[in-house]
C-alpha cells in the first residue's frame, strides 16, 4: 500500500499477523490515512471472519428510563417524577414483544434499562423469567455490566449469584453497553454513580467463567483522550486473552443532543467513526466480530463501515428509544429486506444470527 515510515512498520506487523502495541494504536489514531486504515482493517476482517455480515431480527426492550445514575452522556435516563418517564409492567413488555413477534423471523430480545431506584433485582429477574416462558424460542440478551453490578449492589448478592439466577431464568447473553471508556478518570467525571472500570470488567470476567458470552463496547467522542481510547481497547483485549468470552465489539459514537454535555461537545465526524472502527478491528485481534451499529452511525455510514473492519450491522430493532432520545437521525427500525439490501450492495453475504450478536 501507500504509506511510509512508522505507518509502514505497522502495516508490516498487521500483514504478518503480529499484535499491535499501545504505541501503534496511538499512532493510528493520530494519522489521517483513512482509506489505508480501512484497507488494513478490511484485510484483517477478511482473514478473521470472511465475507459474512451478521444481522438479527430483534426487538429492543427498555423496561424503564427511570434511573438513579443519571450519567452526563445519557439522554434516556430520567427521574421518576419527570416528564416522559416510564416504567413497564410485565404486561407492557409482553405486549411489545407480541407486537414484534408479528415478524415471523423475530429471533431475539435485547433488554437494557435504567437503574430504577426502587425496583428490586427480583423485579428485573421476573421480566426475564416471564418473557422466556412466554417466548421460549427467542434468544434473550440482556443487561449491561452496569446493570448487573447494580443488581449485586441492591440485592446484597454477589455478581456471580446474580448471573446464575439470570441464566437460570432464561438469559443467554449479556449486552455490551456500559463500558463507556474504561478509565476511572473519565467515569468519575461522566458517570460517577455507576460501575467502575474494574467492576465492569469483573462482571464480564465472571459471566465468561459461567459460560455466558458477553459483548463489549466503547462510547467515544466525549471527554476521553485518544490514549484513553487505546487503553480501553487494550483492557478489553487483555480480558479476552484471559477468558475468550467476548463475542462482539461495538463502537458507540457519543450523541450529545439532549444530554448534559450538549453545549460543550459536538458530535463526532464520520471520519472519526470510521477510523475508530478500523483501529478497533486492528487492535482487537482476538475478537471475532466488530459491529457497525447503524442506529448511531446512520445507515449510510454503517454500510461503508462494512469495508472498514465491521462484519455485523446489528438488527431490525423494532423500536429504538435510547439513542433517539439523544437526537439520533436514523430510523427507529429497519426491515429485514432493507438490511439484506444494504449488506448485498456492499458485496457481502447477509447472515441472520439467532439474536445473540
Amino acid at each position, binding site marked *: *500500500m*501507500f504509506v511510509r515510515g512508522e505507518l509502514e512498520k505497522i502495516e508490516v506487523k498487521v500483514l504478518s499477523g503480529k499484535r499491535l502495541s499501545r504505541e501503534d494504536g496511538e499512532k493510528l489514531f493520530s494519522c*489521517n490515512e*483513512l*482509506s*489505508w486504515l*480501512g*484497507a488494513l482493517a*478490511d484485510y484483517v476482517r477478511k482473514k478473521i471472519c470472511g465475507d459474512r455480515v451478521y444481522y438479527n431480527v430483534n426487538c429492543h426492550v427498555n423496561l424503564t428510563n427511570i434511573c438513579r445514575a443519571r450519567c452526563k452522556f445519557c439522554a434516556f435516563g430520567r427521574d421518576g417524577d419527570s416528564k416522559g418517564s416510564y416504567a413497564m409492567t410485565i404486561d407492557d413488555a409482553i405486549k411489545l414483544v407480541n407486537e414484534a413477534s408479528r415478524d415471523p423471523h423475530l429471533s431475539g430480545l435485547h433488554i437494557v434499562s435504567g437503574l430504577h431506584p426502587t425496583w428490586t433485582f427480583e423485579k428485573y429477574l421476573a421480566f426475564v423469567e416471564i418473557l422466556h416462558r412466554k417466548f421460549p424460542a427467542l434468544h434473550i440478551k440482556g443487561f449491561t455490566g452496569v446493570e448487573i453490578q447494580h443488581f449485586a449492589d441492591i440485592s446484597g448478592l454477589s455478581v456471580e449469584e446474580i448471573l446464575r439466577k439470570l441464566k437460570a431464568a432464561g438469559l443467554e447473553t449479556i449486552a455490551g453497553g456500559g463500558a463507556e471508556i474504561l478509565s476511572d478518570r473519565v467515569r468519575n467525571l461522566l458517570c460517577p454513580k455507576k460501575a467502575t472500570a474494574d467492576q465492569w470488567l469483573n462482571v464480564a470476567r465472571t459471566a465468561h467463567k459461567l459460560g455466558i458470552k458477553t459483548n463489549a463496547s466503547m462510547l467515544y467522542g466525549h471527554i476521553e483522550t485518544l490514549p484513553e481510547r487505546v487503553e480501553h481497547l487494550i483492557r478489553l483485549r487483555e480480558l479476552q486473552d484471559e477468558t475468550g468470552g467476548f463475542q462482539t465489539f461495538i463502537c458507540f459514537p457519543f450523541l450529545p443532543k439532549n444530554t448534559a454535555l450538549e453545549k460543550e461537545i459536538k458530535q463526532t*465526524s*464520520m*471520519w*472519526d467513526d*470510521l477510523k475508530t472502527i478500523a483501529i478497533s478491528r486492528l487492535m482487537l485481534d482476538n475478537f471475532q466480530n466488530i459491529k457497525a451499529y447503524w442506529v448511531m452511525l*446512520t*445507515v*449510510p*455510514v454503517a*454500510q*461503508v463501515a*462494512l*469495508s472498514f473492519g465491521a462484519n455485523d450491522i446489528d438488527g431490525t430493532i423494532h423500536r429504538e428509544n435510547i439513542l433517539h432520545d439523544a437526537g439520533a*437521525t436514523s430510523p427507529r427500525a429497519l426491515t429485514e429486506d432493507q438490511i439484506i*439490501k*444494504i449488506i448485498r*450492495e*456492499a*458485496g457481502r453475504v447477509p447472515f441472520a444470527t439467532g439474536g445473540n450478536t
Partner: protein
Amino acid sequence: MKTLDSAKEKISAGGRLNFSEALALYEDNDILYLAESARRVKESRSGKKIFYTVNRHINLTNVCSANCPLCAYQCRSGDNRAFTLELADLENLLSHFPFPFSLSEIHIVSSLHPDKNFSYYVDAVKLVKKILPHVGINAFTPVEVANFAKISGKNISEVLRELIGAGVTSLAGGGAEILSDRVREIICPKKCSAAEWLEVMRTAHRLGLKSNASMMYGHIETIEERVEHLIKLRDLQDETGGFMAMMLFPFHPENTVLGQKFNLRRVGSWEDLKMLALSRLVLDNFAHFKAFWIMLTLPIAQLALSFGADDLDGTIGEEKIIHAAGAKSSTGITRQTLEKIISECGYQPVERDSFYNEI
C-alpha cells in the same frame, strides 16, 4: 481477471483505463482499493487542498414543459407548487442576500417554462450582473441552452454568445443524466439528446465558456451505460479541455414518476462512494470532482474526500430541486461548517471562486 490486472497496472503506472477495464474495476467491488487509488490521483493534482465556495442557488421557475419522469421538482403552471420569479421578484431576492460581498458564485438553473421567452432568461442574468457585479454566474444546463435555441429560433452558438454578453461566466453541468438515448427516452424523453448535450458543451468550450459535467446514476441505466457516459465526457474533454469539475448525482426517487414506475430506491452510500472513486480514475483529464453534499449528505460528502473528491461545492443558501425529491440534507450551511468538515480529515480548506482560483 486479466482485464482487472491490466486495470490495476494502469492505475499504478498512471495509464488511461479503457471501457472493459473500468467495468472490471466496478465488478471487482473493492471499494477501498478504488478509494486509495482515487485519493492518490486527487492528491497528485491538488495535494491536501479541498475547495469550497460561498454561493447561492437561484431557481427562476419550476414550471416545466419537459415533465421528465426523473424529476420531482417540475410542475405544470396550474399546480399549487408552481412558482416563477418575475424580474421584480428576482431583484428583490438579489438585493436582500445577506453579506453579498462574501458571495463568489450565483448558480442559476430552472425548468423549461412553456411561456417565458429567451429574453426573460437573458434579462435575469443581466439583473444578477447589475446587482452583484463581482460574482461568477454559473448558469443554465445544456438542456436549457438547447431549449433557448428552440424557443428563440437562434442557433446554439448565438444563444451562448448572448448569454456570455449578458454575464454568464460558466455553464452548469446538469442535464447530462446518462448520455445514452435509450436511457433518455425513458427518464427524460423531452430533453435534448445525448449528442445535443455534448454539442452544447463543445460549442460553449470553443467560445471560451467553461462548464461542469455530471452523471445521474442509480435509476434504470446499466453499469455499461455509466462507463460509456464517463468515456463520452472524457473524449470531449480531450478535445476541448473546457470542463472544470465533475459531479455525480445519485438518483433520488421520492416523488418521481420514474421512481414509482420502476419501484426504485435510492442507491446506498457504498454505490455513491464507489462511483465517485471509479469516475475519478476513468476521468483522468478532469481536474476537480465535487462531493455535492446536498445529494450525499454531509457525513458521506466528508467521507468522499477520501474517495477522490476535492471540492465540497458551496454554502448554497436554499436548495429546492433535490429536496423536492426527498433529500434529507439541510438546504444550506455555513462556511464554518464546511471548513470544519474539511479540517477534520486532515485536509486544508481553500475557498475558491467560480473558476477554482483561490480567494
